[in-house]
């Protein structure tokens, strides 16, 4: 029993799950402001469990590719041999049940959103659909699963409905995330190529992928800023994040060293995360009636602290440690 629970906890992969949770909270903040409720707890559990389904199904489908890519850390129990395919199937079923059970208190709309999450989790990796093998569709499906559905769940938690102001913000978030997710295959390209898995990176090449990512990141950021119309200091903080992202993506384009590539992607992702935090701070504090100067101050402090970590990695990439790679 303990081993099964441990495996379930392992498959949640907290960092990625928290990224999904961020979009959930942004959806909530856009509609209800700082509402902390039991529904938020249920939604958090549901999102985390549905993500465990996604990782379990994907690990089973791509075990040979993961092994070829040398992904033998603790977060890949199937690739390391610490767990069997049957164990992961059991984990996927258990996590699916947990996700549905946690969505019940959210009502019918919550069940619909989590149902869609689970459906996407399965069709993305498992046959016959196996959308992960369709290089044009895969990043779009992941964007829907990571951004749109959690954002929608945030609206459900807020007990609200889609409104016109959601469209520009969600489009901006999706485009920004698309810029990030098309780079995920850089780490795995050797295994992908050897197993004939088509990805945008392998089809279009690194230069084109980086160019698309830069354009998408900038377009997404501009759309987000237009959608939430933050105070000028927050726009400046977001602009700094954008500069950091573009800087790292340009470095990625010219870097040939595999570790250097991963550090550039991870460092750009850090700037992207801080950008999302700035957006969330702006939404939360404006909903709570905080003065624009106060919201700006909080964002400035968070940006300053994050900048230390970002510059530490950007200026000394040789010191960085790459997570999820043995």
């Amino acid at each position, binding site marked *: 029993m303990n081993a099964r629970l441990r495996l379930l906890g392992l498959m949640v992969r*907290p*960092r990625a799950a*928290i990224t999904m949770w*961020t979009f959930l*909270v942004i959806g909530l903040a856009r509609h209800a*402001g*700082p509402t*902390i409720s039991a529904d938020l707890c249920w939604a958090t559990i549901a999102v985390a469990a549905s993500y465990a389904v996604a990782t379990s199904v994907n690990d089973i489908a791509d075990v040979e590719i993961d092994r070829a890519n040398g992904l033998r850390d603790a977060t890949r129990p199937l690739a390391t041999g610490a767990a069997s395919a049957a164990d992961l199937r059991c984990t996927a079923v258990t996590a699916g049940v947990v996700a549905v059970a946690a969505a019940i208190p959210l009502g019918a709309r919550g069940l619909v959103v989590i149902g869609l999450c689970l459906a996407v989790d399965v069709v993305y990796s498992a046959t016959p659909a196996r959308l992960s093998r369709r290089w044009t569709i895969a990043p779009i499906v992941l964007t829907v699963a990571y951004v749109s559905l959690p954002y929608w769940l945030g609206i459900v938690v807020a007990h609200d409905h889609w409104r016109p102001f959601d469209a520009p913000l969600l489009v901006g978030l999706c485009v920004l995330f698309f810029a990030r997710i098309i*780079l*995920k295959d*850089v*780490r*795995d390209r050797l295994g992908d190529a050897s197993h004939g898995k088509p990805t945008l990176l392998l089809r279009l090449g690194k230069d084109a992928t980086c160019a698309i990512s830069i354009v998408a990141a900038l377009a997404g950021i501009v759309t987000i800023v237009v959608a939430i119309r933050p105070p000028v200091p927050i726009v400046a903080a977001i602009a700094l994040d954008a500069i950091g992202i573009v800087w790292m993506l340009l470095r990625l384009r010219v870097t040939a060293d595999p570790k250097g*590539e*991963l*550090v550039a*992607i*991870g*460092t750009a*992702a*850090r700037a992207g*995360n*801080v950008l*999302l*935090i700035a957006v*969330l*701070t702006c939404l*939360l*504090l404006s909903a*709570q009636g*905080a*003065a624009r*100067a*106060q919201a700006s*101050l*909080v964002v*400035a*402090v*968070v940006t*300053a*602290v*994050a900048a*230390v*970590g970002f510059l*530490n*990695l950007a200026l000394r990439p040789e*010191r*960085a*440690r*790459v*997570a*999820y*790679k043995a």
Partner: protein
Amino acid sequence: MSLVAIVTVAAAARSAGASWRAAIALAGGFIAIAVAKFGIGPTALFQGNQTDVIQNAGGVSSGGMVVVIAIAVGCLYLAAIWVLAVLFRPAGPPDGPNGNAALALLGIGLAALLLTGIVTTAASQYVTWATTGLEATGLAVALFVAAGLVAAAFHETSVRAKALGHASMYMTVLWVAIAFLLVFQVLWIVFLLAIVATWPFRSVTPK
């Protein structure tokens, strides 16, 4: 807040190589500083403000004054973090803070006091209240206890400067975060995500 201070300082000092005993003693020292900072200091300011009104500098409104003070305090915190991070690094033997760092801190403090004195008497009033009367005794006792505990913590350790620098930096950032949290409780979400986004400092997640 004391509990948060204990955990943060003890963990920071321990991660910097101090023994548990030294880490806990150091945490006690920081708590004494916290008592002085958040208890005695504000009390002194409050009592002084009952007799002498702190005027608004340059006709700035009350809300604007808050922002000005916040920016000034923020700059001081950044300066302190910079000094701690750059100058308190453990150099070769003899281990410990060097004289330049102490002078830099003293210079920053005096410069801040003088610059603030140009636009408002608030800073000098505060210093006056904090150095006279009952509050001054309380402050002196608190700081004496803090100094004693810090000294006891590092009586025999060789990682003094590193542990002290780590603990100071974490606590400085933590105080700022707590101050924001006390005003807007909902910011726990933001700080939770900020910690996840920035920690650990040297790890990146490429996928």
